[in-house]
């Protein structure tokens, strides 16, 4: 995708928003210009920056934690048919459960601090990464493994030179696919029983203060957070997996 096209799409969406705001002409839908002004003001003088950082930390910590735990687990399952036979029924049952329904349970067990929020997002990302990495590792052609073994590679070298690079695209794809869900769940966990985070900021400004421009500033910040993560993963993929873009 070209940058110019993305910028054009952005401009079109802003125009659409502007038109809708002018048509509806109610406080519930302020114009993008008004929201932009409040966004900058809240960022410089208000609490938007602090709330953004709190949300950013929670979602980034969850992503790192899920990759750190799910990638090795997926590699282990993908390499060993026996392990996979034992665990795949469990994963098969757990994978489709919408993890967001666990919000009350996790909040009860882990309390209302950062940990509960990080664990919830982690649960979603963990299974995505686990399944994709496992399938990628299991799908490596036996001929590839045999020929690298014939070069002298034992388990450690196979891991380093075959399984690890082979799983990188799977990790990044899993992250890219689940960023939307992760940010949505972040919003849900932050929308009650907390005093900091973009979810809190949006609900507090929209529901309690009825300050709609500030609420939209929060929505924009949350969107930028999701978009920023998406762009980062996209960039990592281009940087770490250049062969996928060759030719």
């Amino acid at each position: 995708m070209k940058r110019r096209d993305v910028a054009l799409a952005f401009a079109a969406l802003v125009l659409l928003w502007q038109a809708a705001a002018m048509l509806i002409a109610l406080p519930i839908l302020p114009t993008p210009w008004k929201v932009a002004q409040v966004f900058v003001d809240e960022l410089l003088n208000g609490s938007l920056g602090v709330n953004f950082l709190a949300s950013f930390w929670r979602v980034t910590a969850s992503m790192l934690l899920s990759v750190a735990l799910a990638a090795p687990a997926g590699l282990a399952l993908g390499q060993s048919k026996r392990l996979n036979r034992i665990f795949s029924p469990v994963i098969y049952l757990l994978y489709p459960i919408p993890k967001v329904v666990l919000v009350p349970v996790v909040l009860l067990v882990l309390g209302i601090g950062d940990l509960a929020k990080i664990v919830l997002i982690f649960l979603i990302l963990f299974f995505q990464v686990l399944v994709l990495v496992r399938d990628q590792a299991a799908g490596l052609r036996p001929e590839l493994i045999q020929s690298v073994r014939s070069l002298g590679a034992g388990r450690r070298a196979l891991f380093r030179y075959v399984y690890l690079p082979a799983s990188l695209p799977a990790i990044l794809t899993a992250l890219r696919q689940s960023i939307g869900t992760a940010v949505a769940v972040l919003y849900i966990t932050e929308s009650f029983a907390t005093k900091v985070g973009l979810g809190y900021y949006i609900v507090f400004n929209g529901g309690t203060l009825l300050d709609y421009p500030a609420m939209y500033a929060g929505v924009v910040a949350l969107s930028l957070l999701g978009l920023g993560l998406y762009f980062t993963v996209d960039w990592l993929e281009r940087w770490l997996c250049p062969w996928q873009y060759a030719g």
Partner: protein
Amino acid sequence: MIQLRALTFGYPGQPPIFDRFDWSVERGEAWAVLGPSGCGKTTLLYLLAGLRFPSDGEVLVNGMRLTRPRPQTGLILQDYGLLPWATVRENVRLGLRVRNFYGPDGTHAPAEHRPSLDVEAWLGRLGLLPFAEQYPSRISGGQRQRTAIARTLALRPDLLLMDEPFSSLDAPTRESLQTLTQELCTEQGLTLVIVTHAIEEAAVLGRKILLLGPHNTAATVIENPDAARTDFRHSDAYQSLCRDLRQRMESPA
């Protein structure tokens, strides 16, 4: 160089492919192993490579019983076995990287291994320098197989095992790679065992041809000293050898 002694091997639930099978290969010989699908050609090669092990009997290479892949044996497979995420140059370096990773431990790498990643001479010898920065998906099948050969030869093997290496290539590419294989074996003093189902390939590359059938108890060996001659492919002797091999394959004794 290679001795199979009373080798027995079969897959579970099936009659053994090899039953007390004896065979030996001298240093510097060029062998083609020929037979129909399912006769155990590939299995034999994997046994020689130390990637499979006999249920009975033994495989000796240089007098040593194989318990794992031997650092001085090179293996080339039909599907190239290249890493899709590495460039041609990095693929050719892979074996050296593996050796550098373990160090000269005598099992993964020869005890006299010195860390190096220099493969330029091999890239040059196999005509790969113009494609050195390309990924395998961007080059032709013949270039991919050249990459696999360079990767193997960069490890300075003394024994080269090839499993149907050229069967997915078009005829001119196949013939040029067959000739290249002959040249490299002579240049490097390699012992060659090539497995193939193509009669013509066995006749061109095998100075000795081992004919396998569905159930192997004794080795059927056909001598073919003329394979070393450069114009052999166009000779009458070649034609009559191919006829002979075809007859033997169609009506196994």
